[in-house]
């Protein structure tokens, strides 16, 4: 509804007319106009104080010299320096065990460890450390290379079968594929390994494999099959299997061998990060004293 003209009594128009459609000259609400002008003023003020106009070689910096990039850099710096204190406390701790018994430090190590674990470890070991076939479960109580804090730290630092000079190289030989044993011997040995963990097996085949086990396997897995952590030889008598504990999986391991690689993280992660990660993995549930 347009306000009628005071003199003519007709509705005021802009004079524009198209096909009989007239454009009424209605006033804008006052509050709207005030805000509209205020935004224009604001824009001019903004140009003066903040970076605004692009040029050929740069841009107008504004009086406040504001830079979002610098703000991010400063914020990152602050984050880093806030971490330095805890990082130094981690490094200064007499032992990893001491970190675990300090609630503050433990909380920091677990939080930092969780984020590092997600970035570096979860791809193979799973988000919760539950592992996959061929990638050890880190939350159970079975450890191929040892589950104390120091063992875990060593594994993180030098890796296993990695390119680190201090790493370990022992591996499970491919007895079948490389012709070290005959197919019949591998079959019998499979029954022997099944028997170690009390699984269903053929007692005759087991008896036939006794001699082969004593000559080929004992040096690493031990007379009773409980393994040897020094050499990374798994315990064959328990319920936990890295590559599967059923007949076909055990046969496959005997025939083709196994040599999973854990990369070395020395140099990729800082010392305090490795300490935090070791504490995190240790507290996932399987940590040994």
């Amino acid at each position, binding site marked *: 509804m347009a306000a009628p003209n005071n003199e003519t009594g007709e509705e005021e128009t802009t004079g524009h007319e198209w096909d009989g459609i007239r454009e009424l000259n*209605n006033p804008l609400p006052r509050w709207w106009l005030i805000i509209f002008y205020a935004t224009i003023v604001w824009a001019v003020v903004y140009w003066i104080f903040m970076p605004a106009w692009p040029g050929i070689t740069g841009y107008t910096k504004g009086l406040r010299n504001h830079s979002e990039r610098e703000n991010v850099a400063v914020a990152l710096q602050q984050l880093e320096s806030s971490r330095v204190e805890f990082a130094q406390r981690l490094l200064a701790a007499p032992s990893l065990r001491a970190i675990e018994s300090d609630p503050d430090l433990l909380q920091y190590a677990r939080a930092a460890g969780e984020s590092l674990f997600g970035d570096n470890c979860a791809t193979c070991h799973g988000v*919760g*450390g*539950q592992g996959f076939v061929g990638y050890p479960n880190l939350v*159970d109580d079975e450890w191929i290379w040892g589950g104390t804090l120091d063992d875990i730290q060593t594994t993180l630092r030098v890796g296993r079968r990695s390119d680190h000079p201090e790493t370990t190289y022992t591996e499970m030989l491919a007895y079948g594929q490389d012709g070290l044993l005959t197919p019949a011997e591998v079959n019998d040995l499979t029954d022997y390994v099944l028997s170690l963990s009390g699984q269903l097996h053929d007692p005759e085949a087991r008896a036939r494999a006794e001699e082969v086990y004593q000559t080929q396997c004992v040096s690493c897995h031990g007379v009773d099959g409980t393994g040897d952590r020094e050499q990374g030889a798994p315990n064959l008598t*328990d319920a*936990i299997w890295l590559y599967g504990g059923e007949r076909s999986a055990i046969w496959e391991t005997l025939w083709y061998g196994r040599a999973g690689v854990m990369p070395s993280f020395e140099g990729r992660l800082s010392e305090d990060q490795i300490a935090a990660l070791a504490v995190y993995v240790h507290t996932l*549930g399987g940590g040994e004293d």
Partner: protein
Amino acid sequence: MDVPSPTSQASTSASVAAYDVEAVNSASHRDLYQKREPIYPKLVHGRFRLLKWSVLVVTLGIYYLLPWVRWPRGAGEPDQAVLVDFSGSRFYFFFIEIWPSELYYVTGLLILAALGLFLATALFGRVWCGYTCPQTVWTDLFIAVERLIEGDRNKRIKLANSPWSREKILKKAAKHGLWLLIAAATGGAWIFYFHDAPTVFPQVFQGTAPVSAYIFLGVLTFTTYSLAGTMREQVCTYMCPWPRIQAALTDDETLQVTYRHVRGEPRGAHKKGESWEGRGDCVDCRACIAACPMGIDIRDGAQLECINCALCIDACDDIMRKVGRPTGLIAYDTDNNLMRAKRGEKRRLNIFRPRTALYAFVLAFVAALMVFGLSSRSTFEVNVLRDRTPPFVLLSDGSVRNRYTVKIVNKDNAVRNFTVAVRGEMDLELSAVGVPSNGRSVTVPVNGDAIRSLRVFLTKSPNQSVAGKVPLVVHVTDQETGVTSDNETVFLTGAR
């Protein structure tokens, strides 16, 4: 023009002159594209004016003084009775200290406030608008300041129409200066609710207060000055959604400020000594319009602009006494009573209606819930989160382990020892990271006013043949008070 004073208080009848006033906001008067016409409410005296002054003093008194009330809570805790502490993420209200996880108490408080408003509105109409709304209270205060400096209605109109002079400039400057001072004090009092008042008060003047304090000080100074000083009734008419909502909350039995037209009409000027036969009691003096801060004529009936402040009642009663007629031509009354009056029936009030009963019942229910919640609120809180990656862990001897994060929130100010144990159908071994365990329970200290997150392992030995999901209760005991907290969770055995 002003009312000539009656010749004698004892005289039973006197003639009154009409006010030269237009109800600028009445529907018939107002155009769509019209500039705001200023309103100069005239000061009235009477019981509702007195009530409004009292409410003004009490509400403003609470607002300005509450942050200064002290409430000792012990070392390391703020001693301000009412404090919203954002940096410490606590809300202190006298003896109550609310953590962010307990924000539902604030929700409950808001629900109570809403229901209280519904009930009051159903019974007495827009009492919130008329007496207690901050917009009304501050506008009333600002008008009082204006009246103090520029005088009452006629003097203000005269000043507004007069050319600029030294006196006018002085008066306007004084008025706006005082307004700004009150506005700044309003914004200033607001920030005291979020910081320790005695600490932040000098800081504000030294320029060392937090930036947020200055921002809120500025924003509230601006809004108080503009809303109460310059916008006034326009806020209620155009900006506020509440008048629209309230229309749905009132009904024919709601007490509202009402012009009893049955008694008042036909209206007309009345000369002293004339008969009252054959005419209404309304002498058309327009005193009700002159007193109205919203610029309306109550005699047009209920309208959206009316905030039910009852000042027209005081104005009219005054006139009725002068002309020797009974007061209450304008009064709190219901629509149904107007109908009854028309039919010659007796006036009555119907307070107990389904609507009011429902509001009252829900209000009492929520209030009881809040009282129960607050009185049974413990000084600690426990959260038990079961690890889901992986859901369970098979151990080398065939045992199955589940992992839990137990968060213990100690709301007390001192260190407390808490014992964590489990109860359930199964025999489970319990251990926790970094804490010695006896296999059944662990006891850990939790610092005062802090949260401790504990990694708890529950292990089922292989000789227990349990399958599926087994419910269990994590039982946390405060060693000092013996208060316990039971938290239901489950144990996944990993077997079918």
